[in-house]
């Protein structure tokens, strides 16, 4: 069983044409974003923010998945753990993108302009938190804390491949517990800083939870996509069974419904109370053709996954699960677009070069980076004490 589970080549190295095309899309995306930042800053920066946040969420979801598995002492996922570890490996480049996004603060955030603040009592009251230096410090703080956790979780996991030391599992369990507390606090604050403060007069206390649920849902979908590709191209062919897919499918199904639950929880309180300063958020997002995005958001992130993944056989069906996961990953883009862009495009969504460029480039970067990170370690944690349980897992 364990024979060909040792260090593998980058799966993309076996498909040079795909790798070249991905690199091309990435380069074109980067060029589009750079030109856009000067030619049409009001259009390009929100989309650069979206792409950076999306990529960062994928990396974080990888760490979060690993942490959840360690904390719950889960055995089933050990054989596929190198996939989320590879996702966690894109955190550095995603953090770099987020730092670059900071250059767009003047185009993105109303509160960064002194003249806008001086005439606005609410913004003055919030200036202690929403000011450029503190904003930059917080961003760097979030990114560094996440990186440290991701770095050590991956490091200990790989170290175990060589030593087989069980105490490394215990170390990772402690780290994971800490990470769960830290991510709940920091990701809440980070999503409020980066996205909610785009409309600095609006607030929603569930906003962090909402973003956390979307991040985890999208991350689970991405992990499933990566696992299925690795199963089809070879490195995990003998390892991943229908039972693993079944469990991934169950998690995706559950978190899709959780996302919907949180979406509605935010909606109904604001809808019921009908207070102008709160309700303006949904009023702006249901205007004109924004309604279409509002509907697609729910259909892509919940309705399709819920209906398709309701039965057991569909969760075990590799091709079907892959399709649903791709739909969720598009759905998460719609979700973020619907959150980020309305303050900039009052009349309705527009899909142009400024939207497609950064997002396509980021997706290409995601696959290039993830598979490169995956190839840096053994395809499965060879000496994890729970590996045997995972390989013989039966859902």
């Amino acid at each position, binding site marked *: 069983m364990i024979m060909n589970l040792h260090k593998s080549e980058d799966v993309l190295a076996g498909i040079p044409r795909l790798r070249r095309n991905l690199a091309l899309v990435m380069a074109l995306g980067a060029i589009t974003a750079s030109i856009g930042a000067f030619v049409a800053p009001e259009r390009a920066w929100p989309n650069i923010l979206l792409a950076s946040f999306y990529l960062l969420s994928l990396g974080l979801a990888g760490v979060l998945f690993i942490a959840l598995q360690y904390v719950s002492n889960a055995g089933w996922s050990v054989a596929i753990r190198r996939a989320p570890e590879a996702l966690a490996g894109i955190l550095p480049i995603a953090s770099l993108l987020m730092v670059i996004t900071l250059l767009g603060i003047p185009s993105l955030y109303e509160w960064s302009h002194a003249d806008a603040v001086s005439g606005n009592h609410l913004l003055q009251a919030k200036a202690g938190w929403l000011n450029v230096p503190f904003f930059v410090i917080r961003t760097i703080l979030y990114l560094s804390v996440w990186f440290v956790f991701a770095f050590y979780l991956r490091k200990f996991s790989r170290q175990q491949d060589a030593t087989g030391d069980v105490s490394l599992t215990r170390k990772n369990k402690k780290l994971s517990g800490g990470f769960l507390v830290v991510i709940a606090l920091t990701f809440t604050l980070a999503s409020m800083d980066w996205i909610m403060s785009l409309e600095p007069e609006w607030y929603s206390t569930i906003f962090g939870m909402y973003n956390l649920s979307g991040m985890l849902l999208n991350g689970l979908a991405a992990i499933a996509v990566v696992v299925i590709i690795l199963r089809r191209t070879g490195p995990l062919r003998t390892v991943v069974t229908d039972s693993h897919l079944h469990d991934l499918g169950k998690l995706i199904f559950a978190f899709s419904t959780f996302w919907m639950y949180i979406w*509605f929880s935010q909606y*109904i309180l604001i809808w*019921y109370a*009908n207070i102008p300063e709160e309700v303006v958020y949904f009023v702006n997002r249901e205007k004109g053709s924004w309604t279409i995005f509002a509907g697609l958001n729910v259909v892509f992130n919940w309705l399709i996954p819920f209906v398709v993944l309701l039965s*057991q056989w569909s969760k075990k069906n590799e091709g079907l699960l892959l399709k649903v996961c791709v739909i969720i990953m598009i759905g998460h883009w719609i979700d973020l677009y619907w959150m980020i862009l309305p303050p900039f495009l009052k009349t309705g969504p527009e899909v142009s070069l400024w939207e497609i460029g950064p997002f396509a480039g980021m997706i290409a970067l995601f696959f290039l980076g993830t598979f490169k990170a995956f190839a840096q370690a053994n395809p499965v944690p060879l000496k994890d004490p729970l590996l045997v349980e995972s390989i013989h897992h039966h859902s």
Partner: protein
Amino acid sequence: MSRRLLVNVFQSDQDILNATKAARENGYTIVDAYTPYAVHGLDKAMGIRPTRIGWICLGLGLLGAAAKLWFQIWTSAFDWPVNVGGKPLTSLPAFVPVTFEVTVLFAGVGTVVAFFLVSRLLPGKRPKVVYEGVTNDKFVLVLAEEDASFDVEKVEKLFAPFHMVKMEERVEED
């Protein structure tokens, strides 16, 4: 009508799993298997088709949703219209939480009740333990002796590699 049964007792989950597979491959009729805990893969080995209780769950959930939605619309818009904050009388968002809860209630409780009915686990039912050790450390596979050609010795030979502890013929009276 009565039927003759052959009760086979094993010592481990792996043994009963292999014995069940062998029995099915050789065309014996498997009445049931009794184990102290859930043995993974046993349902497949026995050739049981997937449960249809999920459809009952879905149907009851939809029934709960429809019934509660209708009830809320009827009470708040027709039977006793109340203006809440100037919102339309039939405001669907306001009805969603309760509709959701009742969907879950109908689907959840209904599925449990349906399960008890289907498996005839009604109140007052007396336990029928097929073999004493089955609640502790023994695994029991029951075969039906369908006709005169059923040969106990053949079965004994078939199960020989699986460390059978005991084999017993019984007649079940209805």
